[in-house]
């Protein structure tokens, strides 16, 4: 009898039930979309922040500062290097997947047309392979993504993987202007250890002192300086979590952490734990955070997440109020029907159960539809703003279902109780 009545309601009052289901679906889709966007926004914004360039630099352990300070008078006297075949170790650390790009940066002074010019040897779009314990790690990496703010004024980016016999270079706009260099020209540069002919692939504008530099391949630089397989500095761009108290504590001295704290710190992508792991993998190197980038990233990330959380909160509040509102009015509408049930002898408990069953079934159908709508909305947001899809979290489905059922019950129980307090004769007489 009970199920026949429930079925009857859906068969005969399907329009009202559909209306409730549609509202629940809309509310649930807002909740789904917003929760997913909120949970995913951190990663997305973090990727966008990578346009600021590297946030970690790796230099030889005791890179003689003196050399840099003496630079004023004595020129380059750097004596310590990182060995080039150790670079692959970067791909083996715990947070290797968070390292988006890295490139060795070797700078030196060369002679071009009898004047001294700074020349940087690096990777542009280098394909690297590293074999360790039988596992092959592969990565395409280079400076292209670490200098996203460069404006290419002439020519294009240097392509390392093209196979003509020439060595290529890119020239800063200021230097190009001073020396009248344009794309396609051949430069003859002289280093400590030899001469190279470099074909200009492109002219770039960077807006800082790199505008006076020549960028060329790492191998060309190493031939010029006679430092085969040696690296002076590595720029690393990694996706990191904003620093919190634990990270600050660890930054002072990781060995002071308790066992649990250490594990948590090590397994969180703090910039300090990534630096620590790089040092573990390449013992002769010292990795440090570029504060300008790392600090700012943390701040902006935190603000964005908080902003999205509060907007999500408002949307959820709106969605829940909308749902409970309609559910309440849906129940109130049925006063005559419920009074009739009471008049023919139904108990309060039975009536309440009947109404709640009906409304919960409607809500669950609505919530299921809403979840998929919300999925679509989240993807629209992801594709439009970040041109990549937003990962769906299983937790969100759970939250949405619990939320919808709770809101439905909260919206309908007071209304049912109020109706049950009314006297059937009055309601049926039409005196409300």
């Amino acid at each position: 009898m009970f199920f026949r009545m429930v079925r009857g309601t859906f068969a005969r009052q399907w329009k009202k039930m559909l209306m409730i289901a549609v509202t629940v679906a809309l509310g649930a889709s807002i909740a789904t979309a917003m929760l997913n966007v909120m949970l995913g926004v951190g990663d997305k914004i973090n990727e966008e922040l990578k346009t600021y360039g590297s946030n970690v630099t790796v230099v030889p352990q005791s890179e003689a500062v003196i050399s840099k300070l003496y630079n004023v008078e004595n020129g380059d006297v750097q004596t310590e290097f990182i060995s080039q075949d150790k670079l692959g170790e970067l791909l083996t650390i715990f947070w290797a997947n968070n390292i988006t790009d890295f490139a060795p940066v070797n700078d030196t002074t060369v002679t071009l047309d009898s004047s001294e010019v700074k020349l940087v040897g690096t990777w542009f779009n280098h394909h690297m392979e590293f074999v360790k314990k039988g596992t092959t790690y592969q990565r395409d990496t280079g400076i292209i993504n670490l200098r996203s703010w460069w404006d290419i004024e002439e020519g294009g980016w240097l392509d390392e993987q093209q196979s003509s016999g020439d060595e290529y270079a890119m020239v800063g706009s200021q230097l190009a202007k001073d020396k009248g260099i344009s794309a396609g020209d051949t430069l003859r540069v002289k280093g400590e250890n030899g001469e190279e002919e470099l074909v200009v692939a492109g002219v770039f504008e960077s807006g800082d002192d790199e505008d006076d530099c020549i960028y060329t391949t790492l191998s060309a630089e190493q031939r010029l300086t006679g430092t085969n397989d040696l690296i002076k500095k590595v720029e690393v761009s990694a996706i990191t979590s904003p620093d919190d108290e634990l990270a600050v504590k660890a930054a002072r001295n990781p060995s002071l952490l308790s066992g649990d704290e250490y594990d948590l710190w090590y397994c969180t992508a703090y910039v300090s734990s990534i630096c620590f792991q790089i040092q573990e993998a390449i013992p002769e190197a010292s990795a440090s955070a570029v504060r300008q980038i790392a600090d700012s990233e943390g701040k902006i990330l935190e603000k964005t997440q908080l902003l999205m959380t509060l907007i999500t909160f408002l949307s959820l509040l709106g969605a829940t109020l909308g749902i409970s509102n309609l559910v309440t009015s849906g129940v109130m509408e049925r006063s005559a029907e419920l009074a009739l049930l009471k008049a023919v002898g139904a108990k309060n408990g039975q009536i309440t159960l009947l109404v709640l069953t009906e409304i919960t079934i409607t809500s669950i159908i609505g919530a299921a539809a809403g979840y998929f709508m919300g999925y679509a909305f989240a993807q629209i947001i992801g594709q439009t703003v970040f041109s990549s899809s937003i990962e769906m979290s299983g937790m969100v489905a759970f939250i949405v279902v619990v939320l919808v059922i709770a809101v439905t019950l909260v919206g309908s129980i007071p209304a049912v109780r109020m109706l049950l307090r009314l006297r059937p004769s009055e309601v049926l007489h039409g005196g409300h």
Partner: protein
Amino acid sequence: MNKKHRMFIRMVMASLVRRRSRMIVALLAVVVGATILSGLEMIYYDVPRQMSAQFRSYGANVIFTPSGEGYIRPEDLEKGAAQFSSEELEGYTPYRYENTKIHNMPVTLAGIDFDSVLKTSPYWHISGSMPSLDGETLVGAKVAESLGIKEGDDITAVNTFEVTSETDTSDIPSYELYTDPESGETYCDHELDLHVSGILETGGSEEEYIYVSLKDAAALTISERGYDIVELSVAAMQDELSETVEKINGSSVGLSAKLVKRVTASESTVLTKLQSLVFIVTSVVLVLTMICVATTMTAVITERRKEIGLRKALGALNSSIIAEFMSEGLVLGGFGGVIGSVFGYYFAQFVSMNVFSSSITFRPLLIPITIAASVLVTGLACLIPIRSAVDVDPALVLKGE
């Protein structure tokens, strides 16, 4: 006002007052919709400004360099900085660089303004404290490491410069002067005692300098001269910045301005993404909320089919029924819009205080927009069910089918 109009108003008001519980349900729906609308609108318009201020933690985005040879004169700096509006200009720091020796090692010394440097380089990490008195110095971590300097140490900076016949030697104690026996040129070894108040860590090239106040830099070199470079932090987008920069370079001010592309280009990339994120989110939430309001209004109107049937049976014209129900809807929409604007403003303020710790800019124009939008949506939401209701045969409705 004639009788008919008065009756009309009385009917609308009576319906709103007597059917209190139903109307509260409808009003609540409209208020929620309007709150979300006005709250998100305000946040959307304020996000670029607020976020732009956050992005200033990347430090200077404009630099001034001397035009041609020489230095930047303080009065030119004033003129150049005045080209940026004082609201947008977060701060500027002049730098003058000098070569000096500490413990007989050559070190580059930078004279800066310690009061403003954290505005242009907020990412500076100082262990110890920022120098506040003359004679105090901040030492870059790399210099400190290689020279074995610690916080609290006292060091002596020595500046050696050639003394020519043009040099004003009246301030130089005679024991500091000596003559190179080979070249016969006179040099001065001027000393300055400094107290190390802190060590600077940035992870960048800033660690390779030591910093003193501009006054100490002048005392060390016994020369008042202009600045080598000035860093500015301006809370504005790239397009606006490059316009101002061109204006400065085009004017006769004795300095040339440059954008720090690395900061400005990246900032505009990220900020554009953020703004479009808030925009898309706002529009999706708005569309869904509006549909929610519409379904609630539909439910409220549909419930009153009997009343409409009765009116029609008594001889009311379709048009007058539509007019009356619509006015009810519009009054609701208006009320809801006003209440929602107020709530929305408080919500936006709450968000702004919590996220950015600064209050939101009040934009009066958003209030009429919110009210108009909520009246429009409520009106549209009422129109559809009313039209279908008046089309019904009164006999059928009243019979209860």
